[in-house]
């Protein structure tokens, strides 16, 4: 493929300059052109580049189709399951890549070199060279795949060259006063922009659909009522049992753990974040602000795994040594409080920078109005700025809450893995996110309720955070409108 892309680009750029030059010559003859010279240049470029690109992609996938159906219909193998077929396919692909690498060790123009050396000496030398290092499974399939691949490459290169040259010729001939090349070029640009946003939307939809479908799979193996209302979380990781029997998979203990830890985190981070935002935006000197704000933002850039380590190695043991053990409450270093506090530290810069933006958005005229009536700065903050910023601050808190609920690393490391319904903050508890990690890293087969429950948990989490985000955005937007 890459040889073609290089060639393509050369021809496309060539078409760009020739079309542009031709357009500018026309213009010099005082012809009024509908499109600008640059538009004509891009017209030539796109006219060559897009068809050849589409052709290359098309042939590539046709090749893959033939290879796959070759593997599937291979008489020597009987596939017991889809997974086995996938495994063979993977093996074949890996070998093909090894051999292609052996044929052309130069990346640049590699497909060109592959075709030439195939025409000169076939694939046997490369096959032998690779075989001397490793054993190749399913040799016949590999050979078949390789030949198909090289055929596809040849077709791409030959057809690509022909089409590129034809298209270049055609677009150069189209350059004229009245043809609207601008419209065509702009259509391509708009399509590209639209495509980008479509990709963003479609991936989200795709993720939701896959979550949903796996959750439905789960619901067919395990009672959904038990999942939603069960108060016990106790998955059995022994295989060979009757499906869905051995395990209790109730979400409530996990939901409780999630909410409890998030609550601790918010109780810690919201006041501190809010007060620091008020101090920074209303009282701090410019010099202090210019140092403190970047530092706070730095805090926001620390990876959560680092916070997790902090919870596991510092805060947890500290709490254990200073509270849990002296009070005779056990010897746990994993606790809701440790995870919540560390998560709170993580959220402080988030709350603070959002609140800072919101407080700064309160118009100066309101402050002036308050000062003009003789209010002091603190009275102004308390009576005017906070009430005016309140809806926005609530929105910020909800956004922070949705981050807390979705946070994983800190709770995996800091809160332990015991799912319980308990009020004691010095005990360890498990959250939804931590259990998703648990269920998927366990050594069970994929198609079991114990594994699939991870998707149901993921979907529940998604629904919760989605609701919080929508609510928060709604409040923040409504608040913004008030001051437009």
């Amino acid at each position, binding site marked *: 493929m890459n040889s073609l892309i290089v060639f393509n680009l050369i021809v496309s750029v060539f078409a760009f300059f020739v079309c542009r030059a031709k357009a500018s010559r026309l213009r010099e003859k005082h012809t009024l052109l509908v499109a600008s010279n640059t538009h004509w240049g891009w017209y030539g470029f796109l006219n060559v580049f897009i068809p050849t690109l589409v052709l290359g992609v098309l042939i590539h996938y046709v090749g893959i189709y033939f290879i796959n159906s070759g593997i599937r219909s291979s008489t020597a193998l009987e596939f017991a399951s889809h997974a086995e077929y996938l495994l063979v396919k993977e093996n074949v692909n890996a070998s093909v890549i090894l051999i292609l690498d052996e044929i052309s060790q130069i990346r640049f123009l590699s497909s060109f070199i592959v075709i030439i050396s195939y025409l000169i000496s076939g694939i046997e030398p490369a096959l032998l060279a690779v075989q001397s290092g490793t054993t190749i499974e399913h040799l016949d399939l590999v050979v078949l795949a390789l030949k198909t691949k090289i055929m596809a490459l040849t077709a791409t290169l030959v057809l690509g060259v022909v089409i590129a040259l034809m298209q270049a010729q055609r677009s150069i001939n189209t350059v004229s006063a009245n043809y609207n090349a601008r419209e065509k070029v702009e259509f391509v640009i708009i399509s590209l922009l639209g495509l980008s946003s479509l990709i963003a939307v479609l991936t989200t939809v795709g993720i939701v659909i896959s979550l949903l479908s796996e959750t439905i799979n789960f619901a067919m193996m395990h009672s959904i009522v038990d999942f939603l209302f069960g108060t016990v979380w106790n998955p059995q990781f022994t295989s060979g049992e009757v499906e869905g029997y051995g395990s209790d998979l109730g979400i409530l203990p996990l939901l409780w753990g999630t909410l409890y830890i998030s609550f601790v985190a918010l109780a810690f981070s919201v006041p501190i974040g809010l007060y620091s935002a008020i101090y920074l935006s209303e009282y701090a000197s410019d010099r202090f602000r210019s140092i403190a704000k970047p530092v706070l933002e730095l805090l926001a850039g620390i990876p959560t795994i680092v916070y997790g380590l902090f919870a596991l190695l510092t805060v947890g043991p500290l709490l254990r040594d200073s509270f849990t053990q002296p009070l005779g409450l056990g010897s746990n270093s994993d606790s809701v409080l440790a995870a919540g506090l560390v998560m709170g530290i993580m959220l402080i810069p988030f709350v603070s920078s959002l609140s800072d933006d919101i407080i700064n958005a309160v118009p100066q005229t309101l402050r002036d*109005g308050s000062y003009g009536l*003789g*209010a002091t700065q603190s009275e102004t903050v308390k009576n005017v700025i906070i009430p005016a910023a309140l809806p926005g601050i609530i929105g910020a808190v909800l956004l922070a809450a949705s981050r807390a609920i979705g946070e994983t690393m800190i709770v995996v490391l800091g809160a332990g893995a015991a799912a319980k319904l308990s009020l004691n903050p010095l005990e360890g508890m498990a959250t939804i996110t931590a259990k998703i990690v648990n269920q998927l890293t366990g050594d069970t087969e994929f198609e079991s309720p114990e594994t699939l429950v991870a998707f149901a948990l993921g979907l529940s989490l998604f629904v919760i955070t989605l609701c919080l985000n929508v609510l928060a955005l709604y409040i923040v937007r409504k608040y913004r409108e008030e001051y437009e």
Partner: protein
Amino acid sequence: MLDTTVDNMIEEKPKIIARDVKVVYGDKEALRDVSLDVMDKTVTAFIGPSGCGKSTFLRCFNRMNDTIANCRVSGSLIYDGQEISAHDPVTLRARIGMVFQKPNPFPKSIYDNVAYGPRIHGLSKNKADLDGIVEKALRRGALWDEVKDRLHETGTGLSGGQQQRLCIARAIATEPEVLLMDEPCSALDPIATAQIEELINELKQSYSVVIVTHSMQQAARVSQKTAFFHLGNLVEYNDTGDIFTKPSDPRTESYITGRIG
């Protein structure tokens, strides 16, 4: 109108006496050596092209320039027999109220907006007392009849002109002696403007009003004394009638005939 002005001048002693007032923002001079007397029970208008320092000068009177970090005021400003810089800004601003260019009601109820100042300064003994203060201020702000049935609705829901009258009522609720207005009508339509001007005319009975305005017609309609500023200088300060009929400085004449500004 001219006669009453002359009477006022003879009867009243100055409310605020400014001498050689100079204001700088950082190292940029915004106002230089301005001296004038603001009379009691008189409307004084500040006119002049944008950026000539009218707002800056107005903000000297209630020390609002203190809230601007790089602003320095020098010279002498005497209010009530004492340097303004020696007054406590909190009580000073209760006695010298201010109304801003853009109506800026707080996002609170109409009642709470007006009660804001009295509450801060502890002017009421009890709820009934406060109710009385609010009603009186709203009546003087010519807004009572329009809002008396919805005192507890939010102030930001009023029309622009009503909002500005609310801000005036809010300013006079602390019983100030001087009312500063910085282009109070520039965001309003002609009808609301006329209502505010009428209100200013009444407020003159009890307060000294200083109004910054862009409109010379407005200055001529509402004021008895007019000061013309140009590039940070006070060019001319005189009875409004004289400024508009026989200006003594050529720059004033150019401005009021529309040649500069």
